[in-house]
């Protein structure tokens, strides 16, 4: 059984690595970064998701040991918040398009400073901590979307104003949909997220 799981994890890790490299190919980058919406709402989330899946492939005991070395759940959450906030800045988007070092930093920071630590921290957060992260994320995504919609100037040199407005609207729509998805998971219980009993010891997992 253990051998089967390890084999499965190894194949998953390989597939994940291939996908990561695929995202880094010039063709994928050119297409995803050609529009602000795809750049912010497809490529960047995919990089975060790669970090999330990578962390979930790490054995539980190793995750625990890593979490202890990193100082616990909240430092990981704060690191993820700061790293993700940086990539919300229009200047950071421009830099990623014009400076290869910034692009490399994006490809490294989003999986390893956002997705990976979030999963490590998530295991230790109760619904209050998770809910706080989620509700903050929803409201801030909506506000950021509004900022992009009503900005009186073009905020990114690399993208047109209409692209900026589209990205803003997609963010607002995404925040509303994600909020109702999250609320739905609370209504029907269960939810999604790493398997870890909450502190009440009920053994359930929550979004």
């Amino acid at each position, binding site marked *: 059984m253990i051998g089967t799981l390890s084999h499965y994890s190894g194949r998953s890790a390989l597939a994940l690595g291939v996908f990561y490299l695929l995202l880094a190919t010039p063709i994928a980058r050119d297409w995803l970064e050609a529009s602000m919406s795809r750049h912010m709402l497809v490529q960047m989330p995919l990089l975060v998701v790669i970090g999330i899946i990578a962390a979930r492939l790490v054995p539980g005991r190793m995750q625990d040991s890593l979490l202890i070395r990193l100082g616990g759940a909240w430092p990981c959450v704060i690191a993820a918040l700061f790293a993700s906030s940086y990539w919300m800045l229009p200047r950071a988007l421009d830099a990623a398009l014009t400076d290869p070092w910034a692009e490399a930093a994006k490809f490294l920071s989003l999986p390893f400073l956002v997705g990976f630590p979030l999963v490590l921290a998530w295991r230790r957060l109760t619904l*209050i901590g998770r*809910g706080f992260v989620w*509700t903050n994320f*929803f409201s801030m995504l909506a*506000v950021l979307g*509004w*900022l992009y919609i009503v900005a009186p100037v073009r905020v990114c040199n690399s993208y047109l104003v209409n692209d900026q407005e589209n990205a803003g609207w997609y963010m607002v729509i995404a925040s509303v949909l994600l909020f109702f998805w999250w609320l739905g998971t*609370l209504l*029907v219980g269960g939810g999604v997220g790493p398997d870890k009993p909450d502190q009440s010891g009920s053994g*359930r997992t929550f979004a």
Partner: protein
Amino acid sequence: MATYTYTPVPDQGAKAGVLAYLVISCVVLLLMMLFGLLMRMEQAQMISIGALWFYKIMTLHGAGMVGIVALAGAAIMWHFLRQYVDLSTGIFMANLILFLTGVVMILASVLLGDFHAAWTFLFPLPTTSMGMWSPGAAALFMGGLLVIGVGFVLLHLDIARAIISRYGGLGRGLGWPQLFGPDDGNAPPPAVVASTMVTIVNLIGLVVGASILVMMLINVYVPTFEIDALLAKGMIYFFGHVFINAVIYMAVIAVYEILPRYTQRPWKSNKVFLASWTASTIMVMFIFPHHLLMDYAYPKWFLIMGHIIGYLNTFPILIVTGYGAMMIVYRSGIRWDMCSRLLFVSLFGWAVGAMPAFIDGTITVNYVMHNTLWVPGHFHTYLLLGMVAMVFGFMYYLGKPNENAPDSALDVAAFWGFVIGTMGFTMSFLYSGKISAARRYAEHLPEWVPYDKIASYFAMLLIASVLVFIFRFLTRLGLASRDYQRASLARSMAT
């Protein structure tokens, strides 16, 4: 098959945190009532504080009352809910600390910064003060509201966590398996159902509220980031209306929990009860448009939806609760004391107070009534004789010395003073609305002044009665934290 027999439950005393909430609620409630009296006396030309102070006091009165009834409602909800689920005292106290921090910010904004754009902070008024207050004062006010909102988000997340841990999901907290399947009699108790509903709607409302507050904070300092005024109004009223609606749904838990102790009849979560709470969970989020019916620029379907759902939402919980209360009281031999009187009259206040809103929710009526004192007439009845009566009933319940303790003549007089004072005060509002007295005006036309004077006298009677309630509660704080039988047994059971 569900069985509906009464199972006695012990009367638990209040935790120190609940008492802290209630004591702060008493002090702030009294202060806000005095502010309200000052405004009515100003309109009645009995005093002269000037327009600036009128609007500053109006801003404090509005924000303070919304906040403090939410705090008192949260205390009731937390007190009873913790008897069914495992709530965090730390989060409960964190909410109180954040609340007080927000209150200090709001007080500083109004008293030191002269902010007086009303608690509704409608865009673009906070940012276009014409020099009457600074952007910093506006930011401090909205920042204060944001801090208070964050505290309530934490409180509701903790409640959600506890309900999910105990029942397996918020849907189960609303009793959906029993509502949509066979009623096995194991539906969550009414306190859990009501808390689940409040948690769902308040989490949605607070996230929307936080979003518009942050947008307006950005706009204060970078006005070129313009906000669509209609969007802002919609978001503010969605948040504000859901939040103020939720307070009575928190406080009504006192009725569900305490009245059955007096009558020894159970208040069970049957299918009708569960259906009404589920229906209101959805509808309470769509009734706010009755505040927007005068904004013709909104899409017509949106306003019609507000009209229809406003009609529909008036009834489910109100009827189920009012009818339920009458059924458990009818021929129960209940012994009336201050607690049971206040809780019972609160249902009358709730029902009567909802009616003016029902009428105002009619588009053609709304065009001529909404900006008159008719609307304050509605929410003062609903909150004072409904929600606040539940809070005082709960306070009397906590402080009752023993199950057979008689009420003093002063308390009984205060009860009638409270009822008559509130009715007179709110009827003056409603009648002023009928004669087209505009709301939010510091100065009134001579024709309106007599009703302002009548309202002021009734408000004085009301405040004097509330002083008795508060004094009685504060003198019985020591009893309030102890566990013992409080409710007087019904005569039919006791004999």
